[in-house]
């Protein structure tokens, strides 16, 4: 009864396993393709497929915001960029330099070793992993069910709390003299945030909002730096590739505004001639 074990797992797990294996094979295949295929265009396309499938995996794991982001950023921007560059630079199909036998063996050996080590880390943790895993999956179910159960009770509780906090906030408000409009807006913002955090705690919100909450509270600074990084990259690219090309008409604002000495307003007496 080969399929006896099937009933061991819930239908949900089954589908998940199938989807995962499909996508995993696609990614590995495309990755191998990227590094082996001769024509760079094919390489880029394979890269795109790999990104797509990994985005799918992300979504499967509940990180749909990132998955979609992956699709937009990687596939949309980076892959296109690659294509653009590949097309622009008419890269000739250079014959792959013959790989000496000795190099290949050494490379494979090292790669194999590396692979083994990484897997070893995985395998060694496996036994404990498996145990916790079971635990987590079952736990996740448990939490899922509980979540729904206490959701209902949470609502009653939270509403009373909300009321109480509003009262407290307002009391606070009255105590301090109203300094100005800004203060009111800020206070409102803080209250909303507290409200959102309570709901996140209850695990109700979807991935994006949760992510947003997290990013804009704890990782705010790092997020700014990431933004800065991107700005820097953009500037860098421009500076690097910018060329002054004189065969292109260009407008030079500053020269236009300067006064030309020769052209001057002159008062002429009537009938005296210039």
């Amino acid at each position, binding site marked *: 009864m080969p399929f006896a074990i099937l009933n061991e797992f819930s239908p949900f797990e089954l589908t998940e396993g199938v989807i995962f294996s499909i996508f995993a094979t696609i990614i590995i295949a495309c990755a191998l393709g990227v590094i082996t295929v001769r024509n760079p265009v094919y390489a880029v396309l394979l890269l795109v497929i790999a990104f797509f499938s990994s985005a799918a995996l992300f979504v499967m794991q509940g990180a749909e915001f990132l998955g979609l982001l992956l699709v937009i950023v990687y596939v949309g921007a980076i892959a296109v960029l690659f294509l653009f560059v590949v097309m622009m630079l008419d890269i000739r199909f250079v014959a792959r330099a013959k790989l000496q036998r000795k190099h290949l063996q050494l*490379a494979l050996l*090292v*790669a194999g*070793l*590396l692979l083994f*080590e*990484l897997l*070893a*880390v995985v395998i*060694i943790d496996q036994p404990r992993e498996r145990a916790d895993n079971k635990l987590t999956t079952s736990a996740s179910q448990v939490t899922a069910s509980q979540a729904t159960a206490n959701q209902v009770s949470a609502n009653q509780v939270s509403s009373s709390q909300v009321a109480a906090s509003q009262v407290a906030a307002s009391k606070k408000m009255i105590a301090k003299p109203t300094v100005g409009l800004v203060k009111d807006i800020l206070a409102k913002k803080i209250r909303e945030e507290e409200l959102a955090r309570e709901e996140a705690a209850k695990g109700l919100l979807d991935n994006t909002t949760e992510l947003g909450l997290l990013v804009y509270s704890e990782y705010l600074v790092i997020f700014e730096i990431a933004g800065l990084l991107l700005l820097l990259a953009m500037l860098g690219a421009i500076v690097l590739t910018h060329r002054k090309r004189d065969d292109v008409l260009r407008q030079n604002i500053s020269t236009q505004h300067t006064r030309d000495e020769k052209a001057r307003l002159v008062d002429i007496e009537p009938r005296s001639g210039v």
Partner: protein
Amino acid sequence: MIVAIPLLPLFASIIVGLFSRRMGAALALFITCLFMIIASILAISLFLSVALRGFETTITLAPWFTVGNLSIAWAMQVDTLSSVMMAIVCVVSTLVHIYSAGYMQDDASLPRFMAYLSLFTFFMLALVSANNLLQMFFGWEGVGLASYLLIGYWHHKDSAARAGVKAFLVNRIGDFGFVLGICATYKMFGSLNFSEIFAMVPDVLGEELVIFNWRFEAITAISLLLFVGAMGKSAQLGLHVWLPDAMEGPTPVSALIHAATMVTAGVFMLCRMSGLFEYSETALATITLFGAATAFFAASVAITQNDLKRVIAYSTCSQLGYMVLAVGLSAYSAAMFHLTTHAFFKALLFLAAGSLIHALSGEQDMKRMGGLRSMMPLTYLLFWVGVLSLAGIPIFSGYYSKDIILESAWASHTIVGQVAFLLGNISVFLTAGYATRMIIMSFHWLPRFEEKLMERVHESPPAMSIPLLLLAIGAISSGFLLKDWFVGEGSGNFWRASIFVEDYHTALQDAHHSPRWVEVLPLFLSVLGIAAGFLCYQIFTSLPARLARILRPIHQFLLEKWYFDKLYNLLFLRSAFSLARALWHGVDEKTIDALGPDGISTVARRLGERLRIMQSGYVYHYVFAILIGVVVFGAFAIAQRL
């Protein structure tokens, strides 16, 4: 006033030396001779006062330096020994000063020569009058310097310059022994002043001196080291090579330095340190042997020499042998007596030879002389005086001083004494032989020099002949006049404390009543020698040539001065130079530099080159390196967890 004696020549030499450029020859001569005459008058009066009235004193001029327990001062110790020497030095030096006025008058830089002569006299007087070993060493090296300057006076002659250096170096080898002797004395006695040393000798007798972890009996070691110093200065066998070459210098120099004064400094030092030498039998024995050997060696070589001045030089060497021999037999006063008489007749011989050479305008080879008997009668006569006193004929001074030495050799009744007696007598015969050969070859026969020199041959001018006459008088009279003072009955209270003789060394006292034949033998041998000389060179002139052919090896051996020069050149000079080159290139460049700085720098450069290849510029090499790093790190991490 006593202090003036050494300082006068010093001032003369400084005045003339500094202004030698602007000063004319006459003025220079006048100053130096005047100062010297005053000094010699003072010296003679001092000698008389010391000898007659027993005057004795030590004058400290100025402190030299004091370090820890060693305090040395510039001082003059006036006692019989030093006053005798001062008198001889001053007298002979003055005569030489006057003589060189005539001999060197056509020399361009006469002031410089006179300055050097006075400088030499100062150093000699400083040496003689020293009351401590360091001041004696000061005079010792100063005299060496003066002889270097004077030998190399005609520095345009390469041979003269080389002879000067050779003289200084061989003297320096002697000084090597002297300095170590001084150090040993300082170690043993803690002081360098003679009075303190002689006082402490008894309680240092048993002490030992450890050098190269060999144990030496202290007194013997010190005496032998000091004797090495004396050997260097008095040209004893082994360190005599510089004396014949020193004849490169002008003849007055040879007369003053290499006959009368400097070479006798060694003998003087031995007599001065008699208080120390008396306590070491081995030292005295070695000194006697060396003296006898030198006497015989020099006499044997002198016979074959053809250069007039070299013959006289070897005769000086031989007479010095006699003096050292006498010292070895602890007959110090006999040595001093012979030193005094020798100073006169040897200076006479040299200056006479000088006027001969002057007349022949520089010709020194006896084979190209001859027939001068009629042309230069006075010099011929004076030459005979010198030869006869050298040979030891009774009236002349040589007889008295040489005979007493040979008698004391016999009277010492030691094996060493007998050997000395034997060698001494053989050398007497040889001395008489070469002396007569010398006078015949240079004065008799027919003139063998070119015609054009003939009319220029003339009797030497008064400036040269007066000193000769004075010296002749001294050569004749000094014998019997000073006999009883120096070695006679009165010698006891004459020498007083300056010479110390152990009471069981009675060689000198017994010498007076030694058997008849011992007194007569030397006389007989010298007469025989003169006869042999006449026989070979006056009558059968072909005999010497035939003899030389028959005894070819011996003749050659003697002609080559017992091959000492060749031996030293090979053994010391050439090996020193090759060792030096080996050390310079081999050790300095090849090992120390190769291992040290150059070695390290080349290794660093080679290592750098090999490392450079690592940076190939290819990205994948770097990635590969990263990979390996990761793998290694991973392995390490896993090993941790297992």
